[in-house]
């Protein structure tokens, strides 16, 4: 009984994904009829310059927003766990995770417009850092729950001043959390659509991959999308595998 139920749930979760992957090898390109195995759509995908430009933009956004959010989120988590925290700090660090994307998108658009800020990749990065910081902070904080806070005092007691203690003790212990949080942040940023859409400004120079996917889905589906989806699914799964290893595997230093 239990096994059957879990099987059904897993089918529900995986059949849609597997369907897309299968269709990406469908020669006919139609979702309805199987026209034989083909990797033709992957060739088409690689010839599409727009996709490469969008991929490049997405990686720029994900990379820089992750670097900034990794730093801010880690510091925020340390401040909250090792120093005094209060409900205002907790709320501020929590809101970016739950606020509807659309609300965040329009308020950032209003903000940037009011300041007459030129929109582009940099404004997407700034916006993504907001929610990424909150997520990195949340992941790093779970890492703090794992370890005995006394080790930091033990290090002071044994003669390690603040900076030494941070480099030798605190950082190595939370590092898996920082890596996992950063990978999460990278995936979120890589996949994020609405906020990027609103804060990218007019013109196609700062189109990101999710924006391109959206227009491909919304306005005329081309079979290339299946091939692209397969790539993105595999890419996301790889990142998740790596981050799982980082959290659970042996500590790095």
């Amino acid at each position: 009984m239990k096994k059957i139920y879990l099987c059904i749930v897993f089918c529900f979760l995986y059949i849609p994904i597997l369907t897309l992957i299968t269709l990406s090898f469908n020669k006919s390109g139609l979702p309805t009829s199987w026209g034989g195995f083909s990797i033709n759509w992957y060739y088409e995908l690689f010839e599409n310059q727009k996709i490469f430009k969008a991929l490049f933009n997405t990686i720029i956004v994900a990379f820089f927003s992750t670097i900034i959010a990794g730093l801010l989120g880690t510091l925020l988590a340390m401040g909250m766990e090792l120093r005094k925290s209060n409900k205002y700090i907790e709320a501020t660090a929590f809101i970016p995770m739950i606020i509807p994307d659309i609300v965040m998108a329009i308020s950032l658009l209003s903000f940037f417009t009011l300041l007459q800020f030129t929109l582009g990749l940099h404004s997407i990065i700034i916006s993504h850092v907001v929610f990424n910081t909150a997520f990195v902070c949340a992941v790093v904080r779970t890492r703090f729950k794992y370890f005995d806070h006394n080790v930091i005092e033990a290090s002071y007691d044994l003669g390690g001043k603040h900076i030494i203690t941070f480099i030798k003790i605190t950082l190595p212990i939370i590092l898996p959390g920082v890596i996992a949080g950063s990978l999460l942040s990278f995936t979120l940023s890589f996949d994020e659509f609405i906020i990027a859409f609103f804060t990218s400004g007019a013109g196609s120079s700062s189109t990101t991959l999710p924006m391109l996917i959206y227009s491909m889905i919304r306005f005329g589906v081309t079979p290339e999308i299946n091939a692209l989806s397969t790539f993105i699914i595999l890419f996301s799964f790889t990142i998740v595998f790596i981050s799982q290893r980082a959290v659970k595997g042996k500590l790095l230093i």
Partner: protein
Amino acid sequence: MIEVKSITKKFGNLFAVKDFSIGINHGEFFALLGPSGCGKTTLLRVISGFELADGGNIFLDKENITNLKPFVRPTNLMFQSYALFPHYNVFKNIAYGLEREKLEKQEISIRVNEIICKTNLTGLEERYPDQLSGGQKQRVALARCLVKKPKVLLLDEPLTALDKNLKEKMKIELKNLQKQFGITFIIVTHDQDEALALADRVAVMNEGQLVQVGTPKEIYSKPKNLFVAEFIGKMNFFQKLKIEGNNFYFQDNSFITLLENNFENPQCVGIRPEDILLKANGNTNYKFEGKIIDIIYHGQENEVIINSKISEEPILIKCHKNQELILNTNISLYCALSSFRLY
């Protein structure tokens, strides 16, 4: 010589430690004993520098260390949770404190190996904390502090996390190590057996204040007040009904003539279970009757619970395993007047 002079520590409006003074001699094994929440751990953290005192001073060999940061204080603290660095192996854990002193690699290696030998950790150098047993973790925590040759080693509930058999073993080991290194040990504990067994002197604390300080023998045989008497060991108490002069009357109107009346307005009189005897001897001059209602076996020495007319509460006595006692029989019990104390 470490001198704690009227240390006060407040958390908000609450006094965790209040006007606490004590002198601890060099090489002494000293215990701070008290129920949980009595401020003993706070005091330990003030001595080790993790909490700053709101008032008072601490002197170590005449030097005022009250405001020294933990990392420059010549004291070391062994944490209750041991606080081993999870990402370092045993060797690196122990070497950490010496590396901070910027010693030569070779010297560090020699000193670490020496301490590993002395604390029976040979062969475990490469292990990580999560691969160690409770007792091994504790020895690493101890070695990590001892290798720094601190003037004072502070131990926060060092035996609490261990199981009963290991506890007994570690008691002996701790005492040996303390003698071997000649370092002042200050141990914080809520376990009276631990304090009495280990320490040269014990300070009993309650509600942030010092109640009594003395050798284990003094504390046990002459508890200063009701709190210490109740907290240390077991004791039978008889509520005061009537006192005339030095005569203390029991419930059945029998009385004892106390040798000393050490209190202004005593509440009760107390006697240790082992001072109530099954046979009369030259010193016993009070006798009462009782009925055995329960026998609790511990092995060597068993506890017997007696109902008697002299008290509403059951009375606890001790008897050797060879003594044949039968449940629900009446027996006579004898005590010396000198073993009664008023509280």
